[in-house]
């Protein structure tokens, strides 16, 4: 009997564990280690954050799901990977610290034959003084953050009902943030909700982001064929903001936040400050800080992980200028080059470089988005890696045979722009490939036949459908595996 250990029960880890167990059956063990008792369908946190959904609607308790499906669940945080074992312990193992009530703080070594790291991001609020829900800004990155944010929106609404004007800033809280898409969804949903509450005229709403142009979204933007033109996403995003009365400041790195305002600098060397009564700013991400040790107990973290804490996989990490980036730099199998039984999926793998062109302010401060890894590729990668590992466990292959390069796959994304079954809208987009491939598609890096987008009520219906479908899938209800990633 072999044992596969999956670290993290988010979109990529939960998908990997569920499929691996389905394909391995009872002959082998699948163990999931994750610090929270539940799975969070993060995309719907946006609706929690504007008060349209309760947090319990976006989470699934993991223990009963895993019990029903024969997956061993350890509610714990992984601390370190020991890929060679240790003195007196010949098997590789992960050191974990339990977080479950009654066992909190208990340390355990969990041995493995194969390990998938799917620990997602650490939210690095400390990167900007004053950033984060413990300080002066709100967040929607976790369902509990989003719920606290919704309470602040209610308080702000009350103030507006009393006739007070409120200044709102939404965007990125640091020059190296990713996940602009989430902030974009939040700002347009909030604007929509304030209109619904009849207080929109009291709100001054500002988008502040590290993007070079609006609509970059960390993907270097995208181009769509529309109305006889090939139009960049900048045009559509600016149009939506203009239509909704949202101002914007781009190319900005937030340097400091205080109780009612923030300071920022911009790519051109300028500086500015803005006051706010409410701000929701995405933090920069890093890996969760796992350590690694060899058999003798020597720290080999640098060998396995990049400086930003993400695990090195089969990517080309050679530092080179933007002009020389290639689609083939991106990983295909997500196997560690050092240990063949170690993989990383979703946000946990180290990307070879950004997707958007990197830029620095005159003083050297980087102000450009780092690469996003959204839900669909995260789950697709999780499934492909599970498939490879299952074949390796069953002795059907010595090498990972399943590929899921973000430079070879497309993504569908639906960004909510206001939630209502009759008047709501969402932007429905498809891009192919996610990572621009300028060798295959010299002008725009993408195949414009498959790169599409439109905004409308239909998108909102799809977003609702996806919410229910993916929660059904996460609950591993009958036929869950038929639902595509």
């Amino acid at each position, binding site marked *: 009997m072999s044992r596969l250990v999956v670290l993290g029960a988010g979109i990529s880890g939960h998908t990997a564990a569920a499929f691996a167990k389905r394909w391995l059956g009872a002959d082998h063990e699948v163990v999931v280690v994750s610090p929270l008792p539940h799975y969070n369908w993060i995309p719907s946190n946006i609706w929690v954050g504007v008060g349209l959904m309760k947090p319990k609607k976006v989470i699934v308790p993991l223990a009963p799901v895993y019990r029903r499906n024969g997956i061993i669940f350890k509610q714990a945080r992984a601390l370190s990977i020991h890929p060679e074992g240790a003195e007196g312990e010949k098997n590789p193992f992960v050191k974990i610290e339990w977080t479950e009530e009654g066992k909190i703080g208990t340390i355990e070594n969990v041995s493995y034959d194969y390990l998938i790291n799917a620990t997602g991001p650490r939210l690095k609020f400390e990167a900007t003084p004053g950033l984060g829900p413990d300080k002066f800004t709100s967040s929607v990155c976790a369902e509990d953050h989003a719920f606290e944010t919704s309470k602040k929106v209610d308080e702000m609404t009350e103030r507006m009902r009393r006739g007070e*004007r409120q*200044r709102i800033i939404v965007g990125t809280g640091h020059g190296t943030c990713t996940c602009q898409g989430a902030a974009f969804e939040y700002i347009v949903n909030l604007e929509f909700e304030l209109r619904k509450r009849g207080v*929109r*005229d*009291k*709100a*001054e*709403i*500002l988008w502040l982001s590290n993007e070079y142009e609006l609509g970059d979204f960390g993907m270097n933007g995208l181009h769509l064929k529309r109305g006889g033109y090939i139009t960049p996403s900048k*045009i559509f995003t*600016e*149009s939506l*903001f*203009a*239509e*909704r*009365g949202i*101002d*914007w*400041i781009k190319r*900005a790195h937030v340097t400091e936040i205080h109780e009612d*305002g923030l300071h920022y600098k*911009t790519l051109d060397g*300028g*500086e*500015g*400050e*803005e*006051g706010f009564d409410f701000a929701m700013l995405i933090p920069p991400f890093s890996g969760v800080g796992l350590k690694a040790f060899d058999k003798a107990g020597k720290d080999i973290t640098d060998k396995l992980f990049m400086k930003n804490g993400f695990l090195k996989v089969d990517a080309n990490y050679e530092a080179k200028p933007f002009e020389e980036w290639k689609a083939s730099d991106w990983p295909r199998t997500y196997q560690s080059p050092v240990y063949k039984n170690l993989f990383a999926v979703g946000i946990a793998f180290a990307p070879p470089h950004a997707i958007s062109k990197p830029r620095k302010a005159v003083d050297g401060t980087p102000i450009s988005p780092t690469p996003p890894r959204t839900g*669909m590729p995260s789950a*697709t990668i999780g499934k492909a890696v599970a498939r490879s590992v299952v074949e390796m466990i069953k002795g059907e292959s010595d090498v990972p045979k399943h590929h899921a390069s973000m430079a070879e*796959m*497309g*993504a*569908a994304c639906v960004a909510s722009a206001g939630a209502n079954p*009759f*008047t709501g*809208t969402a932007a*429905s987009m*498809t891009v*192919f490939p996610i990572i621009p491939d300028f060798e295959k598609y010299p002008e725009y890096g993408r195949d414009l036949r*498959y790169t*599409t987008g*439109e*905004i*409308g*009520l*239909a*998108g909102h*219906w*799809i977003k609702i459908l996806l919410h229910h479908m993916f929660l059904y899938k996460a609950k591993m209800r009958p036929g869950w595996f038929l639902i*595509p*990633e």
Partner: protein
Amino acid sequence: MVDDGKKGEGKERGGSAYRERAKDQGVYATKPTRWTRFMRVFFLYQAWRFLVINLKMLRMISKGHG
């Protein structure tokens, strides 16, 4: 839609030159016509788009998993 009666307020309350510029940006942006806005939420047209977008996404999924 936005009450502009208090232009410049951002500056008084700690706003910057960037914000002042930001306030003008919307003027230069493309805006949808009433017809476009109507079609975005017109039930029958959107029911049709619902089918089309789903098909596009399925095509994307099959390409991505190929």
